[in-house]
């Protein structure tokens, strides 16, 4: 069997441009974890059901285990590592997870954090029912979700309390209202 053909691809991850030569079949989850060593993105089921591997591609939640990395030429990708503040501290969703005890083993947590980050950009002030709906595509085996629902609402509150002018996780400056980010 011949050596695999490598394909060139370039995309931004958490604001940094990466140029990679990858086999065409390499999944985005593996490229992030093993080529870029951004191991915050976790793989729980390898078929798009659990949501642990969720990252944001051009601000929309995407299951990185279902995407070939080489298909993302020019994309702007945000992982859980990119959901921190500019100073590297916990971002609002991350802080809310600690505040509300919304994680136990933490393995599914990165997928929730990216999903919720994207969700709050669209609905900055969800009700508990909306919060539950927003996370109902991600599996968690530890928490029973109750505290994750609480964390969505806590994150919304923390987010509103942050500076009116702030840098969003994809590295672009958004101002004023936290709503209206296109997906």
């Amino acid at each position, binding site marked *: 069997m011949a050596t695999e053909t490598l394909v060139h691809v370039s995309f931004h991850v958490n604001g940094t441009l990466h140029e990679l030569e990858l086999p065409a079949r390499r999944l985005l989850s593996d490229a992030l974890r093993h080529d870029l060593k951004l191991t915050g993105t976790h793989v729980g089921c390898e078929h798009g059901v*659990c949501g642990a591997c969720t990252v944001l591609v051009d601000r929309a939640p995407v299951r990185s285990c279902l995407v070939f990395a080489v298909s993302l030429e020019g994309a702007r990708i945000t992982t*859980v590592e990119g959901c921190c503040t500019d100073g590297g501290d916990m971002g609002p969703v991350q802080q809310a997870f600690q505040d509300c005890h919304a994680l136990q083993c933490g*393995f599914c947590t990165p997928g929730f954090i990216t999903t919720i980050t994207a969700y709050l950009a669209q609905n900055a002030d969800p009700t508990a029912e909306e919060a539950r709906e927003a996370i109902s*595509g991600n599996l968690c085996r530890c928490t029973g*979700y109750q505290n994750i629902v609480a964390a969505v609402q806590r994150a919304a509150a923390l987010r509103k309390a942050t500076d009116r002018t702030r840098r969003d996780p994809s590295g672009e400056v958004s101002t004023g209202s936290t709503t209206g980010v296109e997906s």
Partner: protein
Amino acid sequence: MTTKMFGQPIRRTEDPRLVTGNGRYLDDLGHDALEVAFVRSPHAHARLTDIDVTGALDVEGLVAIYTHEDLEAEDIAGMAEPLPMLIPHPTLTHGRTQCALARTEVNYVGEAIAMVVATDRYIAEDAAERISVVYELLPAVVGVEAARAAEHLVHDDVPGNVAARMVQQTGDADAAVDGAPHSLGLDLAIERSASMPMEGKGVLAKWDSDDSSLLVHTSTQTSTSVRQAIAAKLGLPVDRVEVVTPDVGGGFGVKIMHPWPEEVLVPWAAIRLGRPVKWTEDRREHFVSSAHERGQLHQVRVGYDDEGHLLGLSVRFWHDNGAYTPYGLIVPIITSTQLLGPYKPGVYRVEFASLYTNTVIVTPYRGAGRPQGCFVMERVMDAIAADLGLDRTLVRERNFIQPGEMPYEQGLVFQDGRQLTYDSGDFPASLAKLKTLVGWDDFPAFREQAQAEGRTVGIGLACYVEGTGVGPYEGGHIRVENDGTVVVSTGLTSQGQGHQTMLAQIVADELGMPMDRIRVTTGDTRRFKYAVGTFASRTAVMSGSAMALTARKVREKALRIAADALEASVDDLEIVDGQVRIKGAPASRIDMGTVAVLSNPLRYAFDEAARRATQFAPAADPTKPPVAAGDAPGLEATDFYSPTQSTFANGMHAVVVEIDRDTCDIKILRYCVVHDCGTIINPMIVEGQIHGGVAQGVGGALYERMEYAEDGQLLNASFMDFLMPYASEVPTVEIDHLQTPSPLNPLGVKGAGEAGVIPGSAAIASAIEDALGLTIRRMPISPSELFHLRLTSAESAGPVETLRKVRS
């Protein structure tokens, strides 16, 4: 005064790294390692007649392929032999374990046959696909009924497919049942499920040939025992093997089983190849080659008086142990003993058979046999209530062990070989709290109102007792560094329960140190070599108690050294916020870091702090040896906690359901929990454990089952088909606590980890029964099963008559 940490909902110290993507789980390590894929049996029962690897040899990036022949060829005692029988028991007369790679026969779909090592996982899988195995198919034994029938055998040398039979009794229960004014017989079943942590298993091994030492990282619930097992299997001195548990993405029992074939094969390959080797389990592998639990059939006979008091209880059950029995009989022993819950059963007899089937092995999954036992006992309680026309809570109350009867001997031997003796609990108080929390007495009005709206609702409850904190022991080590950092280690592992935080809370209070000075390490044999593991809701009880005892030793030494330095009596000292100070004269004080410096007499002043401890420092007394006889340098201590028996937590759940009249969809309207785990160290963590346990209980009651075809294929081996609850399926849990401290340990704590899952199926079955007036005898139950059950129940005379009455 330092704020007391014990009992407070302290935010977890683990979280900042876990939420920012800085956790380190197994597959986050070893980026330079070779990777492994396995050829696994696609057949449930077959003889291996040929393995041909030639098709794989030209795969670019292939490093090695190993089969059982290679294990035999290697001059290492034991590698080719079956894996250890971890928990031998005298009644396990026909225990069998598998070889790390199948030798001549496979006994379940998923059993490992060949190990492929390559430069990455993609390539390893390419090569694995090209390995050709020729099988001679044998008939598969699937399910308890087929195993009992024993038309075919899983293992040729195990007659009747029976691994073990065991009987425990407190007297002639059948005579007691026969002589009772009322009696009932019930057949009850629970299906297979699995722990299913979000992170599968994984192993990374590095061999240092210069040092002849092996470093293994594995996603386990017991690093110390994996270390011993690897050393034994590979013929290495234990001293040359270290095992580290990194962050673990959930366990729920499946990772207490060890050594998994991969846990010995990956280190073996790393030594052979002289390069780091890693295996990360994928989800399908986890379904077909880890472990399952819960599958049991039960036959119950119960006798009782006119008021519903139990007079005799006779239980026979059949436990499906899968293809092998490496973890022994722990699950059925727990069912057979913990079935009794908070009740006095009258005369009790229990008999079980543990049966082989050509399916994945069975080892404990959170609850570990208790959900089945609780289901059995609580169905019995509801059946008695229905028979006598009594309120279900009243029948339970009448059979409760009373607080004044503690400690209470059930007259049985528990899973740890010790007497089943309940140490504490106040069951009437717990039930009273539960009735208030759920509004039990107001439910008829709610039902009436719902009925008027065209809705069908029901309420159910279930009670359990859980033996937690089993022995033999756990330990702790605490060292105060020169900068006042408190380095804490315990040998057992963590897989999400917040052990770092909980143990730090204990140490903070005992030592008078702030939380942010405390660093806790779990599950690293380089740091602490004596431990058992994290299972059976034992960490707070075992390591928590050990850590308190250890901290008290460190405190005693710190006060002794500080008393010298401050020229004060030990009795006059206190430790507050990391300072040892004289009570009433807080200006006279010494930092704990300085005490640590003084604890270690020095020749060399390697930094400014060390100057205080050198031989020419003013504190040095030239008339005495620098280290007194019987003392040791360093402000550190090790201690262990080893109790005589388990401590028994308990709880009671009540659930309100609504059944869709057309579709039989089952919706949980309310889920209430009263929980008694003794003294609570961190209520936030305890409640989180309950929430998660309830979610797994709901999954087990309504969704999760392993769908095996008759030929032994697992039909739903993916998250698309094995239905674990999402947020849309799990109710909000309402919790009330009762704290009856355990008299058995220095903290008064009992375990909390597994509790939430135990009564789920029992309570939900009770509520569905109440809603529809029919009888439920097996769980889980799906809407379509309930629909059909309703149809068949409607055909028979009525709800009470559907109880199979043996004698009345």
